[in-house]
Each structure stands twice: as structure tokens, then as C-alpha cells.
């Protein structure tokens, strides 16, 4: 993959994002105008914020075309570049590459990355992709995983999109969390999106609309939006779940850290 050098990127306004856009497979006309559904929007925004907070280089692992592009818009298509404007080309490649189906692609084996965003891991891909990511994630790096919950997530429009894996092949947030914990990773509290509270309030909003109580319907709609993100045990009941995990060696390197 051809990646422009930083000196070229900095020449004009929006150049960094332009370069990132050109590196995203399937995008020749600019970013898509269609948007993913709100649960994915929310998860992607939270993931991007976590990646930016962490700093360093980033890699996106995604099969779903729209979700992969949207991840790149946030993580690679940056206006204030970190990784895309980093001095080493290898970092550029790591930061600008959408990796599909098992980390294929001509990336520099020396390049470690600080954040990996993995969207919708499947059971079949899990062992090899996790092994590859574990090898290349920096010692204090972070793994962000966006999972679609089979039950509530199956009616999201993205599930019917071309390139989308069948929902039966996807690992749920709970399954991913258990697998990571079993391998010694540590996890932050998960976030769930579009959970049972939000769905219930949305149903009530529609009912209020049907019985012609528009003011009440609007209030219920806003309440549903306010309840859209779930924490604690309700998080895993969200249609989409975001996990943030840290590799085992990051903890073992810290004095006094739990094993």
C-alpha cells in the first residue's frame, strides 16, 4: 500500500485526512454519506476517543466495509495527525491499513501499534487474529473490540449489508471478554449501546406517537437516547458492546501490579 510521507501530508489543509482516505480500500470519492446505525456510531466514537486518549499508532481490523471505513474515518482519517504524521513510514502503514481476514498485507514486522480496534470478531478468526494482534500490540497498548450481540443486534441494518458476516458467526461481548480474561488480559468496564432500556423507551415513544401524544413521545425519545449507553451488567445486553482490554505483559511490567 502506497503511503504518502509526512512532509507531503502537511502541505495543505486537510491533507492528513485526504491521505488516510486514499488508503482506505473502496474509497475513491471521499467518505461515504451513508451512516452506520446509532449503536455502531456510538461505539465507534467511544473507541476513537479511547484511541486518541491513548495516543500512538493505530490499526483497524474489520471485515465489514462500512464499519471499517467508519473506523478509519475516526482513527486514521484524522485532522490533527499523530500516527498518520508520525516520522516512521512503518507507523504510517500500521496506522492507515485496514486489515482484513487475518492481518494479511505488507506491513513492517517491526512495527508495533498502540491501539488495535477490532470490529466484530468471529469465532473462526479469533485464534489467529488475536495471536497476531498480541504479537504486535505495544507492551502498554490497548485492544478495543466492538461486538454485535446476536440477540438484539441481529435486526441492525448493518447485518444485512454486503460483506457482513452472519450474526451466528460473531462473538458476543461476553464471549470475547471471557476469552480475553482466560488469556490473562485485563478489561475495563464494558459499554453497551442500544440496550433493553433504550429499546423499551423507544417502543413507548412509538406508542405515544400512535395515540397522538407528540409532546410525550418527544420526551420518551430523548429519554431513550439518554439511556442508550449501558454500563455494568446491562452493558452485555446492548445491541453493540465495546470492550477495552490491556495485554498481560502491560500489567506484569508494572511494579506491584496484579498478575
Amino acid at each position, binding site marked *: 500500500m502506497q503511503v504518502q510521507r509526512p512532509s507531503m501530508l502537511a502541505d*495543505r*489543509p*486537510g491533507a492528513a485526512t485526504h491521505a488516510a482516505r486514499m488508503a482506505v480500500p473502496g474509497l475513491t470519492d471521499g467518505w461515504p454519506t451513508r*451512516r452506520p446505525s446509532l449503536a455502531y456510531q456510538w461505539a465507534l*466514537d467511544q473507541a*476513537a476517543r479511547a484511541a486518541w486518549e491513548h495516543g500512538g499508532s493505530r490499526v483497524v481490523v474489520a471485515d465489514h466495509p462500512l464499519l471499517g471505513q467508519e473506523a478509519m474515518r475516526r482513527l486514521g482519517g484524522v485532522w*490533527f495527525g499523530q500516527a498518520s504524521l508520525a516520522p516512521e513510514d512503518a507507523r504510517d502503514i500500521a496506522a492507515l491499513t485496514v486489515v482484513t481476514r487475518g492481518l494479511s498485507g505488507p506491513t513492517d514486522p517491526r512495527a508495533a501499534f498502540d491501539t488495535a480496534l477490532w470490529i466484530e470478531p468471529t469465532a473462526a478468526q479469533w485464534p489467529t487474529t488475536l495471536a497476531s494482534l498480541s504479537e504486535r500490540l505495544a507492551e502498554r497498548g490497548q485492544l478495543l473490540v466492538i461486538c454485535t450481540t446476536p440477540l438484539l443486534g441481529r435486526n441492525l441494518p448493518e447485518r444485512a449489508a454486503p460483506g457482513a458476516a452472519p450474526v451466528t458467526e460473531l462473538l458476543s461481548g461476553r464471549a470475547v471478554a471471557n476469552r480475553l480474561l482466560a488469556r490473562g488480559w485485563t478489561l475495563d468496564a464494558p459499554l453497551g449501546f442500544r440496550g433493553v432500556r433504550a429499546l423499551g423507551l423507544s417502543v413507548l415513544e412509538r406508542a405515544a406517537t400512535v395515540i397522538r401524544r407528540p409532546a410525550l413521545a418527544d*420526551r420518551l425519545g*430523548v429519554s431513550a437516547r439518554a439511556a442508550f*449507553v449501558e454500563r455494568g451488567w446491562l452493558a452485555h445486553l446492548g445491541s453493540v458492546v465495546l470492550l477495552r482490554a490491556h495485554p498481560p505483559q502491560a500489567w506484569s511490567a508494572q511494579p506491584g501490579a496484579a498478575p
Partner: protein
Amino acid sequence: MTPDRPDVGHDRPAIGHGQPDVGHDRPALGHDRPALGLAVARLDAWLETMRGPSGYTGPVAHWWQNCLLYTGPGLDWRYEGIIHGYLTLASVTGEARWLAKAKRAGDDIRGGQLPSGHFESSCFELNPYTGGTPHEAACDIALLALATTLRERGDDSWRAYQMAAERNVRVAQLGRLWNGESGMLQDDPSTPTFVPNKAATLSEAILALARVSSDGVELIERYALPILDHIRAHQIEDGPQRGGIWQNTYGSQRVEKLFPFYVARCVPALVEGYRASSDERYLTSALEAMEFVLRYRDADGGFAQVVYADGSTNVYPRWIAGVADILRAIETLRPHGYEADLEPTLSWLLAAQSPSGAFPTAEGFSAQTATGRPTVAPTLRDVLPVVGWNDKAFRFLTTLLPPGVQLPGVRSEAYETACVVERGTGVWAETPRHLELRVANDVVYRWEKGSAWATIAAPDLAWK
């Protein structure tokens, strides 16, 4: 062309685009000119703090959705008020520095134009997505005003701004959203939705483009006026909500909500349609729309948020910075003999300016989900200073300045204020470098100005 419509007149005097926003005779305001000059200077100082390398940045609060995590540049309707405001300042002060700022803002938009003709991150509260309505059309209006001003001043750079706007209007807007079969605009290419206020903004952009295009008559007759006719078809003809314009339709299904702010956003386009066509029905529609809006002005000058078909309302949140667009709508009608008192609303707006120079977004977001009055202290979304709302205050306030005015040199000042969130009452703080909300000893929201993402955003605050 509609048979009963007068001929489109291209020999009419050009009013509006490319000219300073106002200059109409206006009754004396209750605010002295130095105070208005100071308010504008402080707002300009604050806008400078919100710039990143590629444009104006910052979080967004809105009625439907918020954008508190992505905080990078937004090439959305914020540029409409910013560019017009700086063009007006250049005109009334005669100082080149304001025109330079208008050009810098135009360069932001050009720098973010995609091969598709769309602009990057043009969806305001939905950012960082592209293809935002009415936001790209609002950018086009601003670019065309900038191009016209530069052309009049003999600055050859006008072509680049006009080309950017023309490409967006023709390719990204009409090319994507015009339904050739129905002969009407859609808000989304995949569904037959029509949103009058958004369509009005595009109609304004088309009318502005028509003034400088060889096919201007076709642009007006084929697109701009039919759009305005469709907006008029959404207007209530009689009854207690007379003059109101329904918020939108899905096919034949009408969404029976009336937002005074968005009804006011239709007024300038209807007036422009009248100027372009001499068809008095557009002016009548604009006047009736304005009358509707003013019926929902409270005694203190604020406006109700939404009115329903049965006459019930959700009063809150009441826009503060954005209310200036309602004042602007009133002013567009003044040359046509319309009189309305700006004063209660103008005073209400000016009283809200914070030490940073920005105006808060709204009052009463806490009452959005409940009946009754809002909490005593504001919420995060109330106090949040948003460029895409403050541009409206900036644009309008600059039009109140007299020719020859010199703005004082001021800085954006830091301040703190109480702020209510779900977990309790905290402290909202703004400095020239950051926005921050603390509750007890926890920082629950923090954004370093200019950066693309919030540094800290507790999940319970991260409303989209």
C-alpha cells in the same frame, strides 16, 4: 415554470448575497453601539480560541442529538454565520483583517472538499459524517457571499470559492438529492423525505448561485422556486397555528411538529424567492411564518422549542445563541414593511454572553425529558458554547454595528459556573485552552480546544 408565476426577473437589484447583511433603517435599539461592539469583539476573540489548524472545532449540543466526543473541525452551518459576520465586519470597519478571516474560513471549507463535492464532517450534531443537510448548503451560501465580495474588490481568488460552492450545489446537493421522477428535493436519496427548513437553505444557495451563473434562470425556475413552493405547501393556512411550517414529511406522512426556530430559518429563503420572482406569495408566506414564530416568544424574549398540532408545546430547551437567527429573519422582512420589536430577544441574548465571549447553547435542557421548568442550574448541554450556534449570534450582532466602528481589543476570559449532571452538581469551566466539567473531584468531561476528540467523557455524559 408555474403558469401563474410572474417571470423570473434577472434585472432586479441584487440584494443580500455578497453584500453586508444589513444596513436597513432600524428603530433605535436599547443597547448602545459601544456595548454591541464589545459583544462582537468578545465573540470574535472566543471564536479564535475554537480554531484548530483546519477549521473551527468543538463539541455540539442539539435537540435531536449531540456530538460531545468528536470535537474536530465541522464544515457545517457554523461557517454560514462566521463568513457572513466577518464580511459584514470588513464592510462596516473597512479593515482588511476581517476579510482575511472570512477568506481563512472559506479556505477551511475548500480544504475539506471531497472528490464527491461534499465537505468533510458536515453533519454538525452527527459529525464526523459528510453530506450534511442543510449544512453543506449553508457553507455554499457563505462561499458565494465571500466570492461576490472578493470579486467586487478585484480579488481574483473569488473564483476558487465560487467553484467550490458550485460543485457542491450542482453535484453533491442537486446531483444526489434531487429526485428527477418526482421533480422535488429529498433530504435523503433513499427515502422521500422533505424538510422545509433544510430545503430553504439549499434554495437560498441555488438563488445565490443563479446570480452568478449563465444558467441562472433555469436554476431558479427548475429548482429554487419549486422547492419554495413545496415549502409553502407545508405551511398552515388557518387556525391557531397559521403561518407555521411543518417540520418535515416522510412521503405523504406529515410530522406534525412546528419548531419556531426552524420556521424562522425558512423566512430568508422565502424573501429571496420573492426578490427573484416578484411572486408575492413567497413574501406573504414569509410574513405569516414570522407572525407564527413571534406568537411563541415568551415575555423575556426567548422562544419555545417545539409546538405540536394540538397546540401543546415543549418549551425547553430554549435556544440562546441560535435565537439570533430568528432576529435575522425579522430583519430580512423589515425592508418589506414588517415591524417587530427586536429588543426583548436581543436583551435576553446579550445578557447571556459569558466571560469567554461565547453565548451558551440553551436554557432548560434538563426539562427536555420532563414537564415543568428546568433545574435552577444549567446542564452541560445548556452551558456548552458551540461554534455552530454562536455563528448565528455573531452574524446578527455584526449587522447592528454602524459604519466606521472600531472594535476594541479584548481577550476570551476564563470562567466557572455551576452545572447540573445526572450524578450531581458540578463546576463547568472554560478557559481559552479547554472546556471542563468537574463533579466532586472527578473530571467527567474535558476537551482541549482544537483537538479532534474529547480527552475525557464519562459515559453518562456522552450523549449522541
